[in-house]
């Protein structure tokens, strides 16, 4: 599946609007790992899994007028991108190898958690698959000592469980450390 279609379809299945480029990146990554299998590469960038192909994808989708992207200011004057679907496009039947219904359900679950919890969840999976298979939680806490505290790591693990990524969610603290 090309990155441009991934972006457009995720925006559509998110209720036609999605706020935040890193949120889009983390959601795409987790959907990929939930079985969508987009076939695009993710690196550790901007504090979590990030795909340059996906960033090119939304640029292309915007250039082709398939989505609208606006730069907005949020809390603390932090700027973010807001993605909006264009009216004419039809809804997808599938998102990669996931059915549209499956993907929509997972996107709804991800929409309910904060950006930080989503970042933590995506990072746990990325670390587990990229060099830290034995101790992703320990590495997470090392990299993000403040974000990973205050019960947020537990919320991230609960999200992974909800998404069906049970092996990541049930990593025991002792096995992880």
């Amino acid at each position, binding site marked *: 599946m090309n990155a441009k279609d991934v972006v457009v379809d995720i925006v559509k299945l998110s209720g036609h609007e999605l706020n935040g480029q890193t949120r889009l990146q983390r959601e795409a990554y987790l959907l990929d790992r939930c079985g969508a299998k987009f076939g695009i*590469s993710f*690196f*550790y960038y901007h*504090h979590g899994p990030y795909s340059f192909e996906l960033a090119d994808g939304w*640029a*292309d989708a*915007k*250039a*082709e007028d398939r989505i609208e992207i*606006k*730069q907005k200011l*949020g*809390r*603390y*004057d*932090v*700027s*973010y991108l807001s993605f909006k679907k264009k009216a004419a496009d039809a809804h997808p039947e599938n998102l990669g190898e996931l059915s549209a219904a499956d993907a929509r359900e997972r996107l709804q679950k991800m929409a309910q958690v904060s*950006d*930080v919890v989503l970042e933590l969840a995506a990072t746990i999976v990325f670390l587990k698959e*990229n*060099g830290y298979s034995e101790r992703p939680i320990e590495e997470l806490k*090392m*990299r*993000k*000592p*403040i*974000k990973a*505290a*205050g*019960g*947020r790591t537990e919320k991230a693990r609960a999200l992974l469980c909800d998404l069906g990524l049970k092996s990541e969610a049930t990593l025991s603290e002792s096995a992880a450390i």
Partner: protein
Amino acid sequence: MLSFTEEHSRGEWTIDSETSRIRDPVHGLIVFGDRNDKARNETDDIAWRLLNTPEFQRLRRIRHLGFSDLVYPGATHSRFAHAVGVYHTARLLIEVIRRRLKNREFDKERATVALLAALLHDIGHGPLSHVFEQASQATGGTKRHEDWSAEILQGDTEVNSILQEVDKGLPREISAVIKEEEPKDIYATVVSSQFDADRLDYLQRDRLMTGVEFAHLDRDWLFDCLEVGSVTIDEDAPVRVPCLYLNLKGLQVAEEYLEARFRLYKAVYMHKTTRAAEKMLGSMLKTFTLDYRDSQLAQQEPLLRYFVDESPSLGSYLELDDASVWTTLATLAASSDTHVAELASRLRERRLYKCLDVGMQAQDEAQGNLFLRFRRELRYRYLGFDSLLFDDAPVTLYDWYSFEDSSALNKILVKTRAEDHEPKDIANVSSIVPALRDAERIQRVYAPCQRQIEEITRIMEEINK
């Protein structure tokens, strides 16, 4: 918890402040050890021993600014010099913290960890510094230099032996500070924040070595305006923690500091010629890695072996330095693949791709869209599209953070009135910083020759109509 070994606590130093010193072009004489200061002797002794390990000496063979000497011939300074400068600067910042905090509040062990992290923060850099990381990413590599630094600290190395001798937990504690994406306390801010020893050193060093006349930093005044206060972090579970901040007299110099970084990014780090070389190296290694993974040639050079190996070892990484890149370029210049051979020859001889600067214009909606449309049109209309390289990157003055307020320690903090409860983010105090938010974006196309640049310029003009 750090517990110095008996040898260290007895004060049996290997260091001699009359011989253990380095003449530095930025900071003058950097002396390791002070007969009158036991605490400083302890840390300086470890630092001096670390400097003399093979892993640290490798940094002498890695240029701090990668390909920048293609534009600024004086910019041949090494990561080694920078790392020593960062250590020296970190000592000054830690001294401010020590003097401003009451003795019982000053955490000597955390200070030592931060100082050694400052010295070792770049030990995992690959050849040509950031150039290698970008090339590595272009070929699918997922390890960052911070990951390699942690491996050097915790692996089978002399650095690890020295640190373990001091305290078994020290390699891990220092690795944690190097890997932290958000400083967790005032000591970690010295190593990594928007006002850290790293930036304070490289802004001065890169300015001096490139020879540019702008981007001056009044370091003495900056340090004189530094105070220690406290700031609230983590909105979910608020807690006040000590922080470094600038008093009102430091606002102007803090703006100068940010402006210096902004100017250096535009004129040095993102220079169109330097970026051309970086993009060319990335493209060459990507082609090689994709098409020649199993070739005999891939086993000839340490650099190529590294790139075709799916899981390169620490040993193979430590073999790499700038010389390995230039040797590989000589080998690849004779390659049978015309694309790879052409790029290698061009890099060796500084026959770099030509640039069409689409504009360092304001990053507004219309202009951003124009570049995307341009790129798309080129893909459909220009036959030589595959030979083009693109560069699209923001140049920002200051990083705004999105995570509630856990990032307060990462910000540049200023207190404008003594009666203020807490210092504020410089973005909320300065009139200059918000004005330059997302100010510019580099958008460039690189092509092998001027004729192609003229062709794509015509396409650009058509789109502009």
